[in-house]
């Protein structure tokens, strides 16, 4: 890269090479650590003032639940109605019986995407029954439908509004950030405090997580509708309302379908955690499997969640795409077979028993457990070696450095790095977040978590680059890899954490393992996309100039996909942070453990909640440091712009 710069920018002495700043910061930091270690460090205190303040707030809610008007006329009603809404969904889905539900779903699949999707629907949902988790799946489906319905009822109008008003957009962005990065664990206990145990609070917890993405995508869709179309409409005398209804919404329709799709995916990923407050469905099987340390017990539920995610994803995406093609085929051609399938299912439901036939159920628990036991005993030496090397070479020194260096030196280094990477404004935001961590009394644990996140993101990036590049070069590899990535993203992490626990022990490494599995898929997708996006003419030009494939990758494709790769790093960080709390359950320590403790110990409620806030701050901080990197013009992009 630097060679290329030197040949083009002749006045090379203008400014020092880009790597000078980070290296200098690194040197200062290490020197500071070696000389000042142990001074001005901020050790952890379980009874810091912010924690106690949150405890007091909790006690207030506890005492005023039935007197305060906010509860009497607000929260308590929401609780009642959400409960009823869930009950209604559950009742309808169960009333359909399994043949009816499969029939209706397949009819919808047909309507959305023809026989392929319909077939996927039959296969997928029958598999749920064969796995022996039919009833739990139906409950999960009811919970997902309830929360997505509410999320959309609130999210779509808000998104449309945000798409038309820049001011609302600016106001919403930080709120949505918090909703998405705040670990769910941290607000599960408050959920119970406000909405009680069971479906209502599970619905609220799920929709808090699912709504931001619906709002964001909708806003983006409305915003993107071409301004000329809007101008044309208003110059023809349309009111704002008419413009919205007749121009903006129809043109944004496909993207809004994507919003629905993403809301469903987010909701599905919450199913397991919501089970901790007695959300009905597949999640409870997984939690029970965890307490029994039994992979075979929870794997069917895990696979069921993956299948449900894939089927719902394909159906909603097909529906989005079909809208564009609508009108090309006569409506009856689609509605008649779809209706016929649904009716056939309903008739079958009347004839067959509603419960899934026991004889068709395949018990996979025992063989799975045997396989897991075999892996646990034969891979142990290798995995322990990997864990020990990573811990001694990377984790321990880094964590030791971050926790025992004076806090002001860490802050100064962060400010310098962020300024260099993203400019003054993001740097100041990042600094503010870091200082807030100290004020909240969670400096030491935040630094421990930062260590895990940094190592996990590095591993995920290396792995993601390798897989992404390979996939970009070979269609076959990409096709094989895609369903695996889907599974890695939707399979509840607790399922694969159990074997990981046996292989790596209750260590930070186990948490890193889980984070990497979760963060790699988006990194791979972004990298693959970025490299594919490099224009074929550029590639051809390089090849005809005599580049080898390796040179092509190194000198042309990777530099040109820089934006996508940096975005991948940014996404990797967000995904890793989402795993911090789950890591707390398997020995990661740090903030994740604080959050888990807050959920389980009455007196530590405040600490858990504040640790959740700290996770958000850490997320915003890392985002601000990395986000600037892809906006800031690199030498390459400058050159291309001027060319």
């Amino acid at each position, binding site marked *: 890269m630097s060679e290329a710069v030197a040949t083009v920018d002749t006045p090379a002495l203008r400014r020092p090479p880009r790597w000078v700043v980070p290296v200098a910061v690194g040197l200062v930091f290490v020197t500071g650590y070696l000389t000042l270690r142990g001074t001005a460090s901020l050790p952890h205190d379980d009874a810091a003032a912010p924690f106690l303040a949150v405890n007091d707030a909790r006690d207030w809610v506890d005492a005023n639940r*039935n007197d305060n008007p906010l509860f009497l*006329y607000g929260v*308590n009603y929401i609780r009642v109605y959400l409960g009823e809404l869930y*009950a209604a969904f559950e009742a309808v889905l169960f009333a359909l019986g399994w043949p009816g539900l499969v029939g209706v779903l397949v009819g919808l699949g047909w309507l959305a995407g023809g026989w392929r999707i319909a077939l996927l629907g039959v296969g997928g949902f029958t598999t749920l029954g064969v796995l022996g988790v039919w009833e739990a799946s139906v409950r999960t489906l009811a919970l997902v439908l309830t929360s997505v319905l509410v999320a959309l009822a609130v999210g779509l109008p808000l998104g449309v509004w945000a798409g038309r008003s820049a001011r609302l957009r600016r106001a919403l962005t930080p709120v949505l950030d918090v909703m998405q990065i705040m670990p769910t664990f941290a607000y599960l206990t408050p959920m119970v405090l406000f909405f009680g145990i*069971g479906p*209502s609070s599970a619905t609220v917890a799920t929709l808090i997580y699912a709504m931001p993405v619906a709002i964001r995508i909708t806003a983006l869709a409305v915003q993107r509708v071409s301004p000329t179309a809007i101008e044309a409409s208003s110059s023809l005398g349309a009111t704002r309302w008419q413009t919205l209804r007749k121009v903006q919404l129809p043109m944004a329709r496909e993207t809004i379908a994507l919003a629905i799709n993403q809301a469903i995916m987010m909701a599905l990923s919450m199913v397991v955690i919501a089970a901790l407050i007695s959300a009905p469905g597949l999640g409870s099987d997984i939690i029970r499997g965890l307490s029994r*340390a039994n992979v075979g017990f929870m794997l069917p539920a895990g696979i069921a969640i993956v299948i449900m995610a894939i089927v719902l994803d394909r159906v909603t995406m097909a529906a989005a795409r079909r809208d564009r093609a609508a009108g090309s085929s006569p409506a009856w051609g689609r509605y008649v077979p779809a209706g016929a399938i649904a009716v056939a299912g309903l008739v079958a439901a009347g004839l067959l028993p509603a419960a899934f036939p026991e004889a068709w159920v395949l018990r996979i628990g*025992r063989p799975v457990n045997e396989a897991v036991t075999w892996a646990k005993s034969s891979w142990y030496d290798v995995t322990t070696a990997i864990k020990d090397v990573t811990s001694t070479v990377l984790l321990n020194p880094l964590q030791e450095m971050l926790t025992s260096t004076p806090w002001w030196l860490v802050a100064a280094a962060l400010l310098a790095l962020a300024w260099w990477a993203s400019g003054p404004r993001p740097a100041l935001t990042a600094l503010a977040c870091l200082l807030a961590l100290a004020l909240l009394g969670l400096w030491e644990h935040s630094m421990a978590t930062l260590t895990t996140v940094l190592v996990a993101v590095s591993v995920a990036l290396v792995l993601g680059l390798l897989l992404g590049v390979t996939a970009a070069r070979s269609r076959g590899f990409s096709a094989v890899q895609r369903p695996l990535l889907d599974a890695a993203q939707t399979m509840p992490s607790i399922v694969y954490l159990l074997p990981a626990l046996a292989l790596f022990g209750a260590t930070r490494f186990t948490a890193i393992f889980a984070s990497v599995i979760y963060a790699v898929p988006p990194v791979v997708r972004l990298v693959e996309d970025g490299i594919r996006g490099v224009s074929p003419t550029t590639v051809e030009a390089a090849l005809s100039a005599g580049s080898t494939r390796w040179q092509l990758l190194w000198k042309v494709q990777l530099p040109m996909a820089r934006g996508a790769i940096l975005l991948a790093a940014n996404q990797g960080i967000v995904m890793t942070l989402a795993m911090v709390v789950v890591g707390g359950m398997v020995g990661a320590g740090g903030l994740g453990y604080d959050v888990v403790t807050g959920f*389980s110990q*009455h007196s530590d409620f405040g600490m858990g909640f504040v640790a959740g806030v700290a996770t958000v701050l850490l997320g915003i901080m890392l985002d601000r440091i990395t986000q600037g990197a892809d906006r800031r013009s690199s030498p390459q992009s400058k050159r291309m712009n001027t060319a």
Partner: protein
Amino acid sequence: MKIRLMAGVVALGLAVAGCGGGARVDTGATATAAAQPSGSGSAPAAGTVNIAINPWVGYEATAAVIAHLLTDKLGYTVQKKELKEEVAWAGFETGEVDVIVENWGHDDLKKKYIDEKKVALSAGSTGNKGVIGWYVPQWMADKYPDITDYKNLNKYADLFKTSESGDKGQLLDGDPSYVTNDEALVKNLKLDFKVVTGGSEAALLESAVQAQEQQKPLLFYFWTPHWLFDKVKLARVKLPPYTTGCDADPKKVACDYGELDLDKIVSKKFADTGGKAYELVKNFSWTNEDQNAVANDIQNNGMSAEEAAKKWVAANQAKWQAWLPK
């Protein structure tokens, strides 16, 4: 636009206030519900008992047997709700939980919900004795016979070093919700160890199984009754003996854990109006062996909780007959 919206909200609020007087959440003690969540606050009179299921198999075994008797012999409907301890206790107040069938101490929660809020009360012992302690795998006790005395632990601290404990030995703890004095014990007994918290029961179970199979050293926090003892041979490490009150100040504890009498906790409302169901819960009492038998069937013999409970009930008629209300 804004004003219209506000007016709408106010009007709606007034209407709600006018017709309902607000939605009050049933607190068991002061139940004047205008609008109640369906299924919650379930009056036991209607024949539904809400049993919290805390996340360990022994608990599940006890709950399964009680649930089986309630439905099969007394005709009640049982709702099982999977919850952690802290959340389950909160459920007494909102009327969503009637019974916790196995409570391990939790003096802070007892103080809050039994003494202060008066929404719950103890329904007597389950007959199970809970003993918390420090354990090593049996092979270690065979190889180093004096390791089972805490005084010799420092001698072996090097064996227990892991990537998480640095230059000290590792003492592995479990779920953060557990009752533990381990930090204080390590400090007050001047042990060269670091408490590493696994974060879940699964972390303990997987570590213990591997410690036996791979012959890896492990010192960890564990408890009886537990089915793990049927699967992995463990030896308990002797700490300075427990005397009454030696654990009064959590920071100064330097003695072993006392034997806990595990008890059942029920909501005040269930105690008042639960009728036969409450009688059964109150009378219930069995031994650690009974619980382990059921738990082992669930854990290691691939039975569902219901099947395991049914099997035990079929084989132990005399025991459960004594619990049925006269």
